[in-house]
């Protein structure tokens, strides 16, 4: 059965108030095409979980779609901070849960495995863990039943929908990811529905099974989204776009009308990712 779907119908299937997860990391493999579609569709009250925040995180928060964020921090690397995210947190427009990278990845791992919880030694004794309430449904401090040692206990995390940008996917949803995978596999395995944005679509059987990073049984939909991570990088395919990221970082830092004008020009005034690529200087990848 082909799982091919359109970007628009996949974005439309995300309901207001739902819990989504993004696979991007700073300036690489950000799910820009879907972040734009959600901002354009004026989705509201979303919970966003993302191991390390990046361009897609800042867009979705800056676009007003998010009310709750679970992440371990993030940036646009040397292009700048996640200014829209930071502003929204400082102005109490969103509630943020801050983790370490490993702790949030472990929550997703536990979600994918169906574990009741997962213990770790990370975050203990820090203000990260202190900021979770004693009766938090996400992170608590407990003791190892075998040794009595203090451990952090992490609840499993199961987003409603995860969006991950991959290199090649077949029509069933088997997918390859070139380069490092940070928390993308754990995110894909944890979500109740996983939607892949892919540079290329091939027939089932055309992918070397040794290179599959995300297998079909955990994938709900496959969206053909060439250059879908532009202006962020996909290793081996395209570099980040320095000019556009610089322009975005400046608008995000300025906030207010400058940021609104940026979103108007590059998100609301365009109807598709292909139009955005034409406008912002991206080449559709082959």
């Amino acid at each position: 059965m082909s799982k091919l779907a359109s970007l628009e119908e996949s974005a439309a299937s995300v309901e207001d108030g739902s819990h989504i997860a993004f696979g991007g990391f700073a300036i690489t493999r950000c799910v820009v095409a879907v972040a734009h579609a959600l901002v354009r569709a004026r989705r509201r009250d979303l919970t966003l979980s993302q191991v390390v925040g990046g361009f897609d995180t800042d867009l979705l928060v800056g676009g007003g779609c998010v009310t709750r964020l679970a992440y371990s921090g993030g940036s646009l690397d040397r292009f700048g901070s996640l200014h829209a995210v930071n502003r929204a947190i400082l102005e109490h427009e969103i509630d943020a849960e801050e983790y370490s990278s490993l702790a949030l990845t472990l929550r997703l791992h536990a979600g994918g495995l169906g574990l009741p919880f997962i213990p770790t030694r990370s975050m203990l004794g820090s203000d990260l863990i202190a900021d979770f309430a004693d009766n938090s449904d996400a992170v608590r401090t407990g003791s190892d039943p075998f040794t009595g040692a203090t451990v952090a206990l992490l609840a499993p995390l199961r987003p409603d929908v995860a969006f991950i940008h991959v290199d090649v996917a077949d029509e069933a949803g088997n997918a390859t990811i070139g380069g490092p995978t940070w928390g993308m596999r754990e995110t894909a395995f944890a979500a109740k529905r996983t939607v892949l944005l892919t540079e290329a679509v091939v027939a089932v059987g055309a992918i070397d099974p040794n290179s599959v990073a995300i297998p079909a049984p955990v994938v709900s939909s496959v969206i053909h989204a060439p250059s879908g991570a532009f202006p962020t990088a996909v290793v081996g395919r395209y570099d980040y776009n320095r000019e556009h990221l610089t322009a975005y970082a400046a608008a995000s830092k300025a906030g207010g009308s400058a940021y609104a004008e940026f979103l108007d020009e590059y998100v609301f005034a365009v109807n598709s990712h292909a139009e955005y690529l034409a406008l912002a200087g991206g080449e559709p990848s082959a």
Partner: protein
Amino acid sequence: MSAWTPREMMVVAASHEIADGELILVGLGVPQIAALLAKATHAPDVTLALELGVIAAHPTESAMGIADPRMWQGAQAVCGMIDVLGYLLHGGRVTMGILGALEVDTAGSANSSVITQNDGTKRRFTGSGGANDIASLAGRVMIVMSHDPRKFRDRVEFLTSPGRRVNGGPRAAAGLSGLGTASIVTDRAVIDVDDDGLRLRSVHPGEDAAAVVADTPVALRSDGVVEAPPPSSNELRLIREEFDTQGWYTS
């Protein structure tokens, strides 16, 4: 080779903290340059790993961050966060982590999350990422940062990454593994962190120990301080011609 900058000396001093054969988790910038410098000089069997799943890369271009694929060039293995932060770090195989910091306290705990500015407004920074994991779990940690008096605090504003002691007690009692912060390398000095707090070990060439102590507004022992040797011409050449060709981090 011409005179060196304080930040070049900081990188050189940091590289001298690294022993051969270590498995090191690093971030972008000065920590990475220090580790690459060590590998190119006295520690050829050092292995560097990046939290997002890159092992033993050998970048040849200046990168915009750890998410810049230029940082992953020449990697011997690519994998994921569970592999690096889980199996290698949580599994106890990482001997050293190198972190930057907005602020440190006398236990070597670090803030990389948020600072209240002079006008009373808060400014948020990168946050933890893998920094808390590294500080919680690595064999030991080195912090590399500029010697700004505002960065030394009795209590950091936000404790992103735990240090040598936690809540005044031993870190093992809090459930953490590894030694915690062992040293803080700045652009003026090298400071050891032990169970009693901070001790000025060495000052960079031309620095006066008393002046460094005066610019470190927390308890800092300063008996037996030595002056470190200056960078060698080979170290300066490697920094300028191979690891920071744009001068982004060390000029």
